[in-house]
């Protein structure tokens, strides 16, 4: 089909404004969801890390929520929270929460017992041990959890089209409805992948910056 190319630079140039708006929406939604999820998951993980049974129960509940498909979750949340941005944001937070909580807890719990013993020997209380020993030791796990959560959130945002707020997914779906306009779907897909890659790189760099000690031994 000559009239419907897969890739069209002209389309991108003609619709740069729209593409920019949707990418910006997508980015904001992703960042906000991951930020809220982190603000909940990190303190909760630090609070429950020494209570294994409670931690297990929390991860269990989060896994059940995670099993519910995004499409279903958004449609269930929509009548509660209205059509639009809110149900998508809440859904995304719930999904990112499990990833962050599980990986952070695993990181906090896998700290070398000898190190914890040493901290106690130095006179650290339980709070100091958590804050100054466990948390730094778990930072690499937290960073990798953040990267995982961010990348999957970027992909999940697109499902938000079912409640009318899908960022770049909106563009894909409109392209599909608009006589299967391929250039629009491809451009939105590529923008989505680039966004995921860019955010992943930023977090990777951030992770390297906050954990300089992990590099010392390998060089």
């Amino acid at each position, binding site marked *: 089909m000559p009239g419907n190319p897969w890739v069209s630079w002209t389309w991108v140039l003609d619709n740069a404004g729209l593409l920019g708006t949707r990418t910006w929406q997508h980015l904001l939604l992703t960042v906000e969801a991951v930020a809220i999820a982190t603000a909940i998951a990190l303190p909760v993980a630090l609070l429950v890390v020494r209570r294994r049974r409670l931690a297990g129960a929390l991860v269990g509940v989060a896994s*059940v929520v995670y*099993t*519910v*498909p*995004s*499409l*279903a*979750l*958004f*449609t*269930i949340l*929509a*009548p*509660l929270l209205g059509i639009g941005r809110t149900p998508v944001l809440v859904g995304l937070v719930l999904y990112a929460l499990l990833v962050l909580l599980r990986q952070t807890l695993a990181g906090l719990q896998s700290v070398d017992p000898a190190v914890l013993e040493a901290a106690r020997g130095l006179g650290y209380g339980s709070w100091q041990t958590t804050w100054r020993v466990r948390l730094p030791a778990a930072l690499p796990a937290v960073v990798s959890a953040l990267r*995982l959560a961010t*990348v*999957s959130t*970027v*992909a*999940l945002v*697109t*499902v938000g*089209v*079912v409640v009318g707020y*899908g960022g770049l*997914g909106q563009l*894909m*779906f409109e*392209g*599909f409805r608009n006589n*299967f*306009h*391929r250039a629009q*779907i*491809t451009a*939105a*897909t590529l923008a*989505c*992948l680039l966004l*995921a*890659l860019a955010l*992943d790189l930023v977090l990777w760099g951030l992770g390297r910056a906050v954990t300089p000690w992990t590099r010392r031994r390998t060089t």
Partner: protein
Amino acid sequence: MNGRFGDVVREAFAFLNDPLVWTRPGGLLDLIGEHLLMTLAAVGAAAALALPLGAWLGHARPGERRPGNRRPRFPLGAAGVVVALSNASRALPTLAIILLLATAGLFGNGATVAAAAVFAVPVLLAGAYDGVSGADPAARDAARGLGCSPARILLTVEVPLAVPLVAAGLRTAVVQVVATIPLAALAGGGGLGRVIAFGMGTQRYGQVLAGGLLVAALCLLVDAALAVGQRAVAPRALRGR
């Protein structure tokens, strides 16, 4: 609780309470059956490709730095490739693949199954690779000492030891596919997603909610059933760990 919310919920339960909605031809029971068949087809196709490949990669570990394989020829070993694949698949929106397949002229259940299978492959590959490559080296050495050929080591030692991880991968893949298929209904595919797509198209949000609840329930049920199965297939010696 506002009126609109109450209306939507009432509509959803009225829909789910109507026996005819379930039993008529093309009703919910048929859609659930179709959904599960499509899941089976997608996971079957993905497993036929990914499980042998993952087992072989985990066994031979081409390109990785390890004793007996001293000069890796590729910058990434097998492990790197598996990890890169599964990361890339996470970033790729399922919706995009489904819409792209549909615009390429691939509509309907076949295309849906293909798209779902594409996303199941990395999960299964990672399970098989991790399971086989993570088999206890002592067990592997013991088998070699008993004179087993590499193929026999793979089949009688590494694969049984990999069963728990492969089963975990299968469970994740099945649940993921059950969750993915409804998305395809937005592009004309079948299965339970049709209820959601139809409700959206006709602005019957109660029906959309009913569809969402059904898909969520199906996923949780399938996951619970597979959790039981996962425990049952683990070799006896590995249970209780």
